[in-house]
């Protein structure tokens, strides 16, 4: 089925771009890459929430 093949190809290319290129290169998880534990992440967010923004 011509249209079916075209759509599968489009899906494959799109998923490759999204998950391999975009996610891997441009969208690392900010908190996971900066900190090793949830406790560190919590401390960081609390700092963000309580530091003076004046």
């Amino acid at each position: 089925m011509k249209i079916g093949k075209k759509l599968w190809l489009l899906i494959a290319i799109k998923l490759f771009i999204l998950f391999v290129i975009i996610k891997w290169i441009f969208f690392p998880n900010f908190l996971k890459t900066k900190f090793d534990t949830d406790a560190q992440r919590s401390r960081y967010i609390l700092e963000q929430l309580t530091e003076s923004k004046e």
Partner: protein
Amino acid sequence: MEHTAELIDWSRAQFALTALYHWLFVPLTLGLTFIIAIMETIYVKTGDAWWKKTTQFWMTILAINFAIGLATGIIMEFEFGTNWSNYSWIVGDIFGAPLAIEGLMAFFMESTFFAVMFFGWEKVSKKMHLTSTWLVAIGSNLSALWILVANGWMQHPVGMTFNPDTARNEMHDFAAVFFNPNAVSKFLHTISSGYVLASVFVIGISAWYLIKRREVMFAKRSMIVAASFGLLASLFMLTSGDQSAYEVAQSQPMKLAAMEGLYKGEERAGIIAIGLLDREKELGDEKEPFLFSVEIPNALSFLGYHSLNAFVPGIHDLVYGNEKHHIMSVSDKMKEGKLAVSALSEYKTYKKEGKNTKAEEALQNFRAHEKYMGYGYLKSPKDAVPNVALTFYSFHTMVGLGTWFLILFILVLYFTMINEIEKKRWLMYAALWSIPLAYVAQECGWIVAEAGRQPWAIQDLLPVGMAASNVASSSVMITFWLFAVLFTGLLIAEVKIMLTQIKNGPEAH
């Protein structure tokens, strides 16, 4: 690195871009699945092969939309982790549950039965195939349900407690989150608007065939199903829109005031049917907000509070307060918010020092003021006001187009039933050109919902400035343009493939 205005603007622009593009694909799936299910039901009931052919044609169009739209929403989840990490951490426990259920249950249900529906015509029985088609329709709408439960919580946060040790909101009442009135009304309004878009789409394409004087029977049959479905959906959308506006009035009065460009609150407030905002108007001045307007008296009071005489607070009342109507000013809320932030800071310090009694006192102090915590991060009371012109014009465009679609469905249904639709070429051109308008109405709806609730990422609790990650604005800018190119490419591919299929027509099946 600081949260700069540039970083926040680019992060917001990127999220808006991906959300708006994603929403180009979703509503057609929401509605077209039901239209296809209705057509296939007629085929199974009557055994008429014409209906099978009609169903298969629209199914191919759906498949194109599904394949190209697939996973465009996942980019927003990437953005949560990278650009909105503070927000993601703070809401994680609340947002995680509905999104996980959406992924596990609704999306897999939709995808599994989509495969049976699309590839299984000659492989499963008629009844099994029909069941699969209905399950695709239900599954795609269930996907929307869970996403809108999450969105409804951002608009009206309920059923959670903020844990000051982990800096996360923890869900303590799933039912409150699930049955959040804001989420329920938003879900019903969103899916019904999807049904309307799909109906306009089917009618518009069918009108093109009639203009070209080809596929006449196919076009008329499609029009009858779509116009009937669209008419019912439009009537339902009217009631869900009314409920949605009522919920907005209760939990987001500033959004309602912006939707109507209402600066000074009034009793028996009217709705602006048509209006041109004065761009020079500023909060606090005495200028009239409109250069020109036509008002429907009492309608806003009724829409927002279900009473013709109710007082509807304006932007001025909400920012500066109104003692008579017990409305707290933003500056008072900012004081409360700063007390909450300060108490949270003290709690953190005392905990670290092991002073548990003092930490407990600080926590109680925090609980007393946390309702307005988000206001503690605003720099000026005026920061609590969204972009009025954007919200006003988007809302009125959405309502105006919604009204036109209702009229369109009535006209198409009437002239198709009396078999005179082919003679009404103006109506067919109007139907064809209504396709892009249906998409405009959809996007306007989301602009009202999201731009109208600024500056909040979570209503009253977390402004967007605090929700963003400390990343370089240049990297957000680069990915913004990357997505703009990628999505535009996908959109061009979708339109091109669809147009080829439409030109080939149902006979190609």
